[in-house]
């Protein structure tokens, strides 16, 4: 067990002992840590909540003996989360001889910066992109850059700079350093970390067993997986989080297993890592995850976290509900699988007991003939929280409705099904006249609220229309 964390910064291994640190606590963000050094002022704060990308840095880590590069928002990262990784900042991109990285050079050449405040973050997003994509498509570029707001340029030159620079087979001066970095990364022990300071306890277990017993001993401790929800309590509300169990070091939670009939996704798999495995068999989930947050957010966020927050606007919840997914909960008392329908019982309230962890989510594949679609309605198409969302699933017998699930987010205090409309539709013809009647029944199940994102009237209208949209998409317009 250790109480210090170790990571690579500026080509060296840095050991940070929170006990002896006046400046930093285990819930200090990587952003504030970096900005405390005169040589790392390049990383910028634009929002401190994961929405602007000005704070983007790249984390490099070993996966199957290869280095992977991921762009993340440093404002959402607690320092212990970078243990065992390399933290790469904009200051590291030039070669030792001072030559600009290809992504930097093309941003200069193509007028990709104006005021320049968003630029270091954009450079880091592009750098991670450079390391992962060769000759990318426009769609890939747009997706990568969604998490970086720029108020000056209108983005066109930035997109062009990415297209122009990412053409060298992902090779750059970091490629030369790889063996050294791999050696460094391997030298950092993966054992669990327990940090205790005057007013905080921060556990970063290294195995699931340890995590479960820690949760047993500290039932009040806050769990974090990607911390994209929890970090805001520190950066925006300035709360002192007294006890934390950080699951980001538990490899057992990052596993995906597929069988013929289902997929089981570890609670700690990042959403970006889920995208590929679910693309074929779980299109409704895939569609939603593609536009979930931003690339940076998806590199951190997990299904475990989305289920843990159980927010009424959690985007995966209506989908998991429509798929009849099961939430796997584990504690020292054992393991139980709760169907999503029974999992959420109120506003951010679930049946999970204080000593239980979410360890995985089991999603059954659709049976033959089932059709499922997900929808997100938000003010801005990308990187926005849903005003409302929905996932619908239908099984038809000829043109008759055999079974139907209409799950909605953002329409009530929790993810909820439109039971009245479902009941009405059962056994009926799947056709426009019937749907139009069902649309009027949505009001019976929901009385949505008005808030900063939209009015109750809008929510209701859109919720009704989505039914019609579903019909059209399953049947065509007549």
């Amino acid at each position, binding site marked *: 067990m250790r109480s210090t964390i170790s990571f690579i910064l500026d080509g060296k291994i840095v050991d940070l002992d929170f006990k002896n640190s006046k400046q930093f606590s285990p819930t200090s963000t990587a952003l504030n840590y970096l900005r405390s050094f005169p040589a790392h002022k390049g990383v910028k704060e*634009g*929002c401190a909540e994961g929405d602007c990308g000005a704070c983007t840095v790249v984390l490099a880590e070993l996966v199957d003996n290869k280095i992977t590069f991921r762009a993340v928002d440093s404002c959402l990262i607690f320092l212990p989360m970078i243990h065992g990784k390399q933290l790469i900042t904009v200051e590291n991109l030039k070669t030792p001889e001072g030559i600009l990285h290809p992504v930097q050079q093309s*941003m200069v050449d193509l007028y990709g910066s104006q*005021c320049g405040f968003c630029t270091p973050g954009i450079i880091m997003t592009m750098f991670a992109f450079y390391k992962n994509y060769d000759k990318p498509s426009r769609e890939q570029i747009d997706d990568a850059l969604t998490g970086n707001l720029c*108020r000056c340029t*209108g983005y066109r*030159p930035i997109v062009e700079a990415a297209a122009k620079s990412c053409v060298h087979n992902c090779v750059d001066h970091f490629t030369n350093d790889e063996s050294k970095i791999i050696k460094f990364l391997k030298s950092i022990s993966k054992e669990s970390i327990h940090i205790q300071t005057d007013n905080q306890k921060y556990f970063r277990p290294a195995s699931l067993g340890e995590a479960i017993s820690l949760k047993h001993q500290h039932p009040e401790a806050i769990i974090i997986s990607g911390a994209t929800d929890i970090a805001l309590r520190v950066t925006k509300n*300035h709360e002192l989080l007294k006890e934390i169990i950080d699951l980001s070091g538990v490899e057992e939670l990052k596993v995906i297993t597929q069988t013929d009939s289902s997929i089981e996704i570890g609670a700690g798999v990042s959403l970006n890592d889920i995208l590929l495995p679910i693309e074929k068999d779980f299109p409704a989930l895939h569609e939603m995850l593609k536009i979930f947050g931003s690339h940076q957010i998806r590199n951190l966020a997990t299904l475990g976290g989305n289920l843990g927050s159980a927010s009424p606007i959690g985007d995966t919840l209506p989908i998991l509900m429509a798929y009849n997914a099961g939430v796997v909960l584990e504690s020292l008392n054992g393991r139980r699988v709760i169907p999503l329908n029974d999992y959420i019982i109120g506003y951010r309230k679930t049946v999970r007991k204080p000593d239980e962890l979410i360890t995985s989510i089991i999603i059954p594949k659709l049976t033959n003939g089932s059709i499922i679609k997900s929808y997100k309605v938000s003010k*801005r198409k990308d990187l926005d929280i849903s005003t409302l969302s929905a996932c619908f699933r239908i099984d038809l017998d000829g043109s008759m409705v055999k079974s139907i699930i209409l799950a909605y987010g953002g329409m009530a205090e929790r993810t909820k099904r439109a039971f009245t409309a479902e009941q009405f539709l059962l056994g009926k013809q799947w056709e426009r006249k019937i749907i139009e009647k069902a649309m009027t029944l949505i009001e019976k199940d929901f009385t949505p609220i008005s808030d900063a994102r939209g009015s109750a009237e809008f929510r209701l209208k*859109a919720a009704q229309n989505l039914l019609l949209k579903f019909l059209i998409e399953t049947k065509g317009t007549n």
Partner: protein
Amino acid sequence: MKTENQIPHDSAVGHVTGEAIYIDDIPVNDQLLIGKVVYSRYAHAKIKSFDLSEAKKVNGVYAVLCYKDIPGHNQMGPVIKDESVLAENEVTFIGQAMFLIAAETEEQCREAEKLIKIEYEPLDAILTIEKAIEKNNLLGPPREMKRGDADSALKSSKHIISGELRTGAQEHWYLETQACLSVPGEGKEINVFSSSQHPSETQALVAEVLGIKKHEVVVEVKRMGGGFGGKETQANHVACWSALLCHATKRPVKIRLFRDDDMIMTGKRHRYLTKYEAGFDDDGLINAVKLEFNSDGGAATDLSFAIMERTMLHADNSYYIPNMSVKALVWKTNLPSNTAFRGFGGPQGMAAIETIIDKIGRALKKDPAEIRHKNFYGLNDRNITHYGQTVEHNRLYLIYDQIIKSSEYEKRRKEINDFNIKNEFFKKGIAVTPVKFGISFTTTFLNQAGALVNVYTDGTILVNHGGTEMGQGLNTKMQQIAAAEFGVSIDRVKVNATNTSKVPNTSATAASSGSDLNGMAVKNAIDIIKERISKELAQIWTQQPSNPPTLQQSILFKEDYIFDSDHPERKISFSDAMLQMNLRQVSLSAAGFYKTPTVGWDKIKGQGKPFFYYSFGMAVSEVMIDILTGQYTLLRTDILQDVGDSINSGIDMGQVEGGFVQGIGWCTTEEIKWDAKGNLMNHSPDTYKIPTVQDIPKDFRVKLMEGVPNPVGTIRRSKAIGEPPFMLALSVWLAIKDAISAVGNHKFEPEFSLPATNETILLSIEKLKGKFHSPTLYESTDSKSRRPNPSKGGESEVSSREGI
């Protein structure tokens, strides 16, 4: 030698390496304190009592200040003195500064804030324009501009339309929030490092607030992480607060607003409620327009009247309106004082007249493009604005003809109509909108600028000017101008941080005028230095008696050399020459000055020539909306913009695209709401949505016009570019309306407002659907409207008039 048009932004390498320094990055010694502003949580309340004693006791806290601790004036209003630095007996909006804290860390500041006890007595708050109107709560006297007799012209018009338009507020969302670092100097001196568009005003206000003289305050602005108008007056606030804390503690104090605080405390683009009436004939030729603009000024004056003036001066946009009456009222509400934002009132004015045009099109069953073209200012007649300025060098027809052709407008209009007939659940729309934007400050005396150019004996040049760099590339253009005027390579020229001790008494970097004004001032300074050098060299080269004399005017500066063009062998390198000049006691430093000629504007009469010239541009945008969700996709935008002879086309393109995309935000997703208590509901990027990379046109074709030098004598015949493109985004807004209108087969006028959020779109569609069963063909708010001529379709007939 790199004096060409295409040099990169002068800070580009600094930007991409993270080495470019912003306020929060300035190295400061360990004496630095962090400042925090404690602000009102009530929109309107009496401050019955407050107690700072506990807060002062917090470990690490050096000062907790209230209004009584202000040594000078408790005032920071830029024009009208109606903004206190710290509230005294009353607070008038949520976000109004009440107390200041300086401590070693942010946590200590927060802890101290929690210990401040305030007793409020809530008062009735005015939170909407409607309520302000009801209570007759004006910020100042109404204004009116008139030409002809709009009332009787309306009466005699064949068709009349009327209505109301709401345009929303907009948050600047500069990536770098408001920030300032104040460092104490000797005695009363203070050095203020500010993220301000108007350092001279910052200097003046800091001096007034501290009760010291202007020559004791130095304000420096290296660069801003975005401004867009939001740091024209409101950066002064943060500067005054940090200066007060610096003065009180005798330590450097930095204030950097947290994003939510910035959004809550600072003003926005003014929201407007506009009432309009317009009269026109069967062809859509406008005969009369009556407008009443009501803006939400917020709790104090700030620049609201200047902004409203620009609205009035752009209520015609590009159209000749023979009878026009424009009334303008600025209302006082219990919200943060609204302020400058790119376009400065222009967008709100144009949104109104473009709505009128659009409605005329629908009423007459004609393509609005045709109505626009018909009403454009004429080249030789119909060319005087409602405020008396002649629209000279009109490029509207030239641009219109080009863009209608290059965008294949007519073909696409047909395709869109076909698409809309075939598709029930997706509708497409298209719109072309023009912009004619007047360039100059309408407060005439502000049209001046200064510069200080130093040449050093190694042949390098340092340019100081009064403008500020906020990303727009002003410094790059100044660098290019200096290099070109001196005939030297770009690397010899550096542009210094803007500093009030180098160039005094400057105007704000605003009104798109930064390059026009400062470029001329820089040139003026260089002309002075060149004159001295030429005179001296002419003497040197003429000294040998056998020589034919060198004429001073024959001396040229080119390619890093200075030579006599009549005797090219008389030649000296620029660097050698500077050393020579120094040895021969010639001054290599000069101050330059410029004021815009030929503008003059009588504010009282509302008549004159407020603008040096006009900038023109047009955009064609096509959108598709999902009529079940109200979500829209911007399929394509074509832009053609007139920038005269561009000084730097890369930078100018950036202004066009960036301004346009910011305009898209205002027109679509950027929605600001306040709750019933006056709390800003969209106070973070979580709920306030500026465009991302995914929101720009899928197909984006921007062109700067070529071979069109500015006919009036601007620096290198360029034209201002900062603001005009913003308003081109109205093409997106009206394309959305066109798509909505397709739901009702263009027979009904859709309800519409700005921003067109998915909610606005969906609810408008739902109302249209409800009208399907109604028997009337075209609904007008006025019964006089004739039934449209059904034989004419929606196609536009575009004449090809010659432009200049």
